[in-house]
């Protein structure tokens, strides 16, 4: 039970600790450093999200897991905004190129697409009740965007040559993929067994 928490702490903590020891930090300004770590924390939160919603983080109840998923989603938006704003302050032309999809760096469009997917999910989640989105509709919107967020973030991160150490970065990316695949496979299995219908009626 506590094992999953230890594993999660290590999966997110080790790559961040390794990046904190990068020699490249010596030649970066504080805003650039903050922007880099905000990006790493964002990737860590992308790992936490499927674990929360899948109910793997025992002893959190399904309800509390879902509440935490909402709050972590908000934190993810904040982390991405700090990441982008910090990079913009560090080198405005490079950030503008990235946002306009005209950057020479191959990883930039993946990050920008993931960013827009994160903002879209957050906005729709905030307006979900007002828009009257039912669970089934919501999932039809959220799941494809979640796939875009996970795939975009992982490719973005892996292609960057920066302060993150290669092995711990690859391990974190693999876990992010694995967690997303696991929660979606579980959801699909549950839906296949037909338990979803009763569940969604109960919740609406």
């Amino acid at each position, binding site marked *: 039970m506590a094992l999953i928490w230890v594993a999660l702490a290590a999966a997110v903590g080790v790559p961040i600790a390794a990046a904190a020891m990068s020699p490249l930090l010596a*030649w970066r300004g504080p805003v650039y450093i903050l922007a880099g770590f905000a990006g790493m924390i964002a990737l860590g939160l992308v790992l936490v999200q499927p674990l929360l919603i899948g109910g793997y983080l025992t002893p959190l109840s399904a309800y509390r897991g879902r509440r935490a998923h909402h709050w972590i989603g908000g934190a993810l938006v904040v982390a991405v905004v700090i990441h982008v704003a910090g990079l913009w302050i560090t*080198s405005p032309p490079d950030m503008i190129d990235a946002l306009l999809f005209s950057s*020479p760096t191959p990883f930039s469009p993946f990050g920008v697409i993931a960013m827009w997917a994160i903002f879209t999910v957050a906005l729709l989640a905030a307006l979900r009740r007002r828009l009257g989105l039912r669970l089934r509709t919501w999932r039809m919107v959220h799941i494809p965007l979640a796939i875009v967020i996970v795939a975009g973030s992982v490719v973005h991160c892996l292609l960057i040559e920066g302060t993150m150490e290669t092995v711990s970065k690859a391990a974190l990316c693999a876990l992010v993929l694995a967690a997303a695949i696991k929660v979606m496979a579980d959801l699909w299995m549950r839906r296949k067994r037909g338990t979803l219908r009763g569940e969604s009626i109960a919740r609406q």
Partner: protein
Amino acid sequence: MTTVVFNRRTLLAGSVFVTGVFAAGVSGLLLPARAEGVAPTDSMSGGANNYRKGAPIVDRIGKGGFWMSGSVRRAGDGAPLAGQRIQIWAHTVEGQEHEPQSHGATLTDKDGAFRLEMPQIIPIFGQPHGHLAYDSGEFKTVFLRPVMRSAKETSLEAHFVLQAA
């Protein structure tokens, strides 16, 4: 900043192709009429980022330890261009890309080659890369952004083929 038509890979492939055509022309494998096809180098996307106009001509940028080199030729006949001012800047161990001490310029020799010592380039914005500009006005302005194969490398090359302004 610059208009993007090609990505870096196609540009690199293009410059390799151009170099090959030039070498073939010099070795006499191509007719002189064909050698007129030496195509001008296009600016690379992001090449002009953190550019500063009028960086001074220097013997060395900062304390040195890293070599930026390359060549400047004329589009069409591929003739080497002597005395051309090439501006160089990068994020190095001595400063960020936009800072004045990270910028310097040098002139090509009689063979159209240039070589300037500068501080070690380190990865910035996800790639270890340098910036070069030809911006003297006689020919069309070109901004290049070569990427190092590894951050451990201590040299980098960039080649210009310029066309009349």
